């Protein structure tokens, strides 16, 4: 099987699509996620077996077809997508591969998507990823990779949220980090985001610390770029109180849904909150 859309039965198979893809497929029932599809580890294997730099023609034909479907479901011609690596052993409970493999944002058109998928496949063998696997006692030779192709939400504000305080371990506190623009700057630790602490039991706000929000990830013609946040906006909270509450409700709900404390990435575009990723909190002491 080459690929499945997130809402297709079987798309939540970790062994077939990798951790990230499988968790996205499971999220669809719990929250609004941007539409997309996952390319299976079989496609990866056929590329490896082929020994060519090119994508096997049957795989690329299916990706092209799927991209057209995505244009229809999103109702956007030339729909911009994020292309993300989804290794089989990543995002499993206990390990977090955050950022080790490649991700490509604002990819537009079927051919650029195919190129980005090949680059993701190659990143399975980048040195950081190999070192990480070795250090964590994971298989290096047998590692396999799925790839997620998902409509890119042009986030006005991006946030990372935890259903428990990841630093103190306090299970009564929801912690949200938020900053302007696409999520890369927040997730990649490029900025000091705003930090909001919310009491889990009644969703009351415990504290708001305005971060310096030095930069923001913006869209360019065919990718993204880091730009300084204008000085007059650095002192403004990125999230409204209502938006922060909505995010807190979502993480509490996801923790209940999954049965473990969660760490999510989400994006706000217009009035809509999108869930982009949901993982267990890997740093919490048991």
């Amino acid at each position, binding site marked *: 099987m080459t690929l499945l859309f997130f809402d297709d039965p079987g798309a939540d198979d970790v062994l077939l699509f990798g951790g990230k893809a499988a968790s996205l497929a499971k999220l669809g029932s719990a929250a609004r996620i941007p539409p997309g599809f996952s390319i299976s580890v079989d496609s990866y294997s056929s590329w490896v077996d082929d020994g060519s730099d090119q994508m096997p023609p049957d795989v690329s034909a299916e990706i092209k077809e799927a991209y057209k479907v995505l244009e229809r479901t999103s109702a956007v011609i030339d729909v911009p997508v994020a292309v993300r690596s989804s290794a089989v052993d990543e995002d499993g409970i206990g390990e977090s591969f955050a950022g080790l493999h490649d991700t490509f944002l604002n990819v537009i058109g079927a051919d650029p998507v195919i190129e980005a998928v090949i680059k993701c496949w190659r990143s399975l063998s980048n040195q950081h990823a190999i070192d990480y696997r070795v250090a964590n006692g994971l298989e290096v030779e047998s590692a396999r990779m799925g790839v997620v192709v998902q409509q890119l939400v042009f986030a*006005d504000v991006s946030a990372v949220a935890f259903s428990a305080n990841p630093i103190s371990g306090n299970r009564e506190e929801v912690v949200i980090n938020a900053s302007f623009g696409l999520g890369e700057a927040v997730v990649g630790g490029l900025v000091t985001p705003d930090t909001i602490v919310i009491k889990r039991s009644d969703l009351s706000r415990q504290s708001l610390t305005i971060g310096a929000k030095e930069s923001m990830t913006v*869209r*360019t013609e065919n990718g993204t770029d880091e730009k300084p*946040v204008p000085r007059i*906006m650095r002192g403004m909270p990125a999230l409204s109180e209502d938006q922060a509450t909505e995010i807190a409700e979502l993480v509490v709900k996801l923790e209940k849904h999954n049965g473990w404390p969660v760490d999510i990435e989400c994006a706000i*575009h217009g009035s809509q909150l999108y869930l982009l990723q949901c993982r267990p909190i890997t740093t919490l002491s048991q």
Partner: protein
Amino acid sequence: MTDSQTAEHPEPRPIPAPDNFPIEWDNPEDSHLPLNQDRQHAPTPLTPLSGWLAQHHWAPGSSVGFAALDQPLMMHIRRINTYYYLAVTPSVPMEQMAEAGKKAEAGLKAALPVFADRWDNEWLPEIRSCHDRWNAFDLPAASDSELLEHLTWTLDTFERFWDIHFEVMIPALVGPSMLLDLYSDLIEDAGPMDAYKLTQGFDNTSLRAGEDLWKLSQTAADSDGVKSILASTPTGDVMSALEKSEDGKKLIAGINSYAQAWGFRSDTVIEIGDPSWVEDPSIVIDTVKAYLRDGSEDPRKNWNEIVAERERIVSETREKISGYPEPVKQQFNGMLHAGQQGHRIQEDHSWWIDQQANHQVRKVFLEFGNRLASAGVISERDDVFMLTGDEIIESAKSGFTGDFKSAASERRAEMEKWAEIPAAPHIGTDYGPPPDNPVSRALGRFFGWGPPRDSDGPSDLISGTPGSSGKVTGTARVIIKLSDAGRLNKGDILVTATTSPPWTPLFATAGGIVTDTGGALSHCAIVAREYGIPATVGAAGATFAIKDGDRIEVDGDAGTVRIL
């Protein structure tokens, strides 16, 4: 106290007065104020009455305006050695400043989107109705007690105007200033004057007053007889010479109707001792003469290009930030609106408040001058400006008694004495640089405050602030009083202390502008951009360093002037 705290709040330091500018404080407390000479609004010695009016009615009204916006600031005006000084101080103790600063930020944020609407729909109608009341009041017919009552209302209204003035002008200055900050953060390769193009090409009263004056000159251009009278007759005799022909009478009617429409103005916006153009149309006549002499061009000739250039740079900016988060685009749109409206209102408020209210107060005091002079309290009507308001009121209340004849001539002599001595720019107490916040940045850009400029450069190069784009070479005309402006020929560079809005019709004649004072958001710079002529503003000392008749080059993008 840690080092960083010391750096934020350095010890207050008394500013030593220059030897030729010794200061005797009327009230010793005043020596604690951080007073700056405001050359932009009053470069020359101020009459006692103007000083009294500014200190006791303008400044308190201004402080009310600050408070209405939750700005923790107070305005102080003092007339020191006849010069006009201004200080802005915190209105709350230092330990409450952090809390007050938050409130101030919220107050500004709330004001920025609405100040232009409030000006159009709330404040301007209120101001107009007050002018109607002033204009309808028959001054000569009023009894002494009616006149005193009218003066009380006049001073209250003047104070209210200054309250409105700052309630509208703080956001009207902060809006453009924040737009500049935002633009330079968003557009990395921006040219120094690009951001100002975002706000150009909006009509305002300064431009309309200039345009109407040029149109008046064109009615004269149609008649050779009128043209030759204007070319050969001294300004003071022009009106009587024009009486002799039909075409001349038509121009007189035109001059009178221009004076009625736009004549409630004089040289500067603080001094009420200068006649307004409706009383003495010499400046109108001089400007018409200059327009005809040199075949000046329609001041609006570049208007379409100025508007098109604005639209081009607005859409270029929108294009550049099209991939930015929506909140950033919303900030840009909000600040663009505030900046554009702020520029319009900066000129319009000056016409409706600064210029016309001064004229109205002047008219009322002139009536007091008539009565004081007939009662022998002063020698002539205009000596009224040598008295303080308190002295005038006290005399009027006791049936116009007392004797101020020698006091008036002593005070006039004092003004003449100080006119020869340059005022110390800063006196009182130095509290270090103002805190960096949107309001102080905006005020800095208006007044042209900033770090001291490099004085080690070549002496033929004077540095100021970029005011209006372009480079031009011409003959310098150093003109300090508007009544002297008849000497300005087409293409000359106007070198002056300051240009308040009444000066801007000269921009149709001048090839470029250099001022001693003011910043890129001053009236002068705004209107120079609308006329499309190069301007360097805030070039401290330019009027001293540049000699009348020098060939000079103005570089409005670099903010420099070179003496060739």
